[in-house]
């Protein structure tokens, strides 16, 4: 579904990603793990065309997307849930969700909106309870659910999540991860970028390890969980040896 090939990207003269290649197959959950500053967010911004890659190729459903505008990637069905939620605080939950369906309105598929709205309410019942509440007054976890719900309103084929567990309580993280799994089971493809490696590898099918802008490991989630380097660097195992 999504193919990234030999992409280099960054900010002006600062090159952040070096020769990054990855793919996400239809119906897969793919996790990208890496430390702070490894280039995870830059990667998602590059795929969603917020930043244009300096070279390389990105294809979504075999359509090259490196030359198109960011909002067009959204209408192709590749939607980003940004880091830190970024919900529209002064608007209600329902208004936030309806804004996510903007591309459906543009496509003239207004009738789908109610259907999508009820799907989102089904996935996150708390959003239904708080539909009239201002988004800014929601808890962190609820805002994250709202951000994912808003992205789902566009009926995406592939949803990209940037650090969905950031700053959330463990129980809320668990709830969100369960929702992500449910989403996959309903056919949505998911690319998820996380620092919480254990959480993401627990739900992902495959994963990539990004280190200083390059991918240094890839494999099934199980392979990565078994990899001793990943265990030491990202899963906090093997402390006794490090302390020796």
């Amino acid at each position, binding site marked *: 579904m999504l*193919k990234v*090939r*030999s992409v*280099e990207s960054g900010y002006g003269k600062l090159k952040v990603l*070096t*020769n*990054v*290649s*990855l*793919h996400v197959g239809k119906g897969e959950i793919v996790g990208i793990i890496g430390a702070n500053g490894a280039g995870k967010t830059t990667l998602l911004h590059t795929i969603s065309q917020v930043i244009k890659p300096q070279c*390389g190729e990105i294809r979504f459903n075999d359509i090259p997307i490196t030359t198109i505008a960011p909002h067009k990637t959204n209408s192709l069905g590749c939607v980003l849930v940004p880091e830190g939620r970024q919900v529209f605080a002064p608007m209600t939950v329902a208004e936030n969700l309806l804004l996510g369906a903007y591309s459906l309105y543009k496509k003239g598929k207004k009738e789908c909106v109610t259907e999508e709205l009820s799907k989102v309410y089904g996935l996150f019942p708390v959003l239904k309870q708080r539909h009239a509440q201002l988004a800014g007054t929601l808890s962190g976890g609820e805002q994250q659910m709202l951000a994912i719900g808003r992205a789902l309103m566009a009926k995406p084929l592939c949803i990209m999540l940037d650090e969905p567990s950031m700053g959330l309580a463990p129980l809320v993280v668990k709830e969100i991860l369960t929702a992500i799994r449910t989403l996959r089971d309903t056919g949505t493809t998911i690319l998820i970028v996380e620092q919480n490696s254990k959480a993401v590898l627990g739900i992902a099918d495959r994963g990539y390890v990004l*280190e200083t802008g*390059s*991918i*240094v*490991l*890839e*494999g099934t989630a199980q*392979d990565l969980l*078994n*990899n*001793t*380097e990943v265990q030491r660097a990202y899963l906090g195992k093997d402390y006794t*040896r490090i302390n020796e």
Partner: protein
Amino acid sequence: MTVHQLSETMSKPDLSQLQIERLQTTLNRVYRNVSFYKHALDEHKIQIDTIRNLADIRNLPLTSKEDLRKSYPYDMFALPLRDVVRIHASSGTTGKPIVVGYSRNDLAHWADLVARELSWAGITDRDVVQIGFAYGLFTGGLGYQDGAEKIGASVIPASNQTAMSDLFTIMKDFKTSALICSPTTALTLARYMRSTGIHPEQLHMKRGIIGSEPWSESVRTEIEETFQIELFDSYGLSEIMGPGVSAECECHCGLHVNEDHFIVEVIDPKTLESLDEGDEGELVFTTITKEAFPLIRYRTGDRGSIIPGPCKCGRTFVRTSRITGRTDDLIMLQGAKVFPLQLLNTVHETKGIAPQCQIIISKTDGADAIEIRVAIESNYEHIDEIKILEKLRTDLGKSVKDRFGIGAKITFMEETTLINENRGKKQPVVIDKRYS
């Protein structure tokens, strides 16, 4: 559908995406973790971020057997020893052995790949698999064991049974349905079977997976006819992984390379230029998933070619031809080019002669002379009849003359002496006295 079937029939664009991802990842790791590759890449002024497509692999430096010997024992490892869970080594008959390491994931992939290949040969959890390879530093025994167990077959590690009669007792009583061994072992078993009058119907054998040495079509026919089974060629080498690199499918038209784990190329062994599909040269492999012992463009020294076009079986993995010999042992003799393995094949085809030989090349009165030392099989019925032995000698000499256009002196040796002098090596030992 299992994950395996999905990979085996992957479309070419998907496969090339997977290969480039894994190649780039491997390069990032070897550049950081293996000093040999850091130096080699820096010396050739190759920046790894310029490897953007699979065709760019040609720009990367080659790795030779000599490089691996120099790194003895652990210098080529990309992981610290505490992350290495298994160590194997290649035989060191011509120098220091090459030591290879496996991480936990490497072992899991290895078992997966061997299981995949065995399933191509039709092995299932209902089979009783008898393994004739040595269990030790050599990768054959344990490699096939793990793969066959992964399928769920009942595996008999029968490598320490040296007496033929014991092996046949196991085959009969344990109801062995698949035999995994070297061609020499299979051939010796087949000849024992004929000489002792064991009928294939007394056995339960259905198939054989034969590997670790190159073997000819005539050897295939002889073993298949004697056992009345179907044989599958399997290729691998310890440096790359062991068994599990490539194998024949049911179509028997070349060996499918497990391309989701290895990238295969063919190069001209003299100019080192990459060759096109169909051209014969030296097989070169790059491992793209190995964690502990990754190799970039490793020169195998094995001669073969890439077979163009898809296979009828529907698998999309590229096929290589069967191994036709070694690139480093070509003998130029009396104006003719001879590969020792071709000579060995001629020896194989001569009934009554054990499937091993020693080749001595010398200069007599300024001309090249070749002597082939062979042994009569210990259970050969006419072993005491000088006339018949003389005929064997003339026949073998004639076959060599007909096939290679060279006159060879044939000498008989005791079978045990020959085995000892060859230090157990199945491949012919060549002693070239011309330049000494």
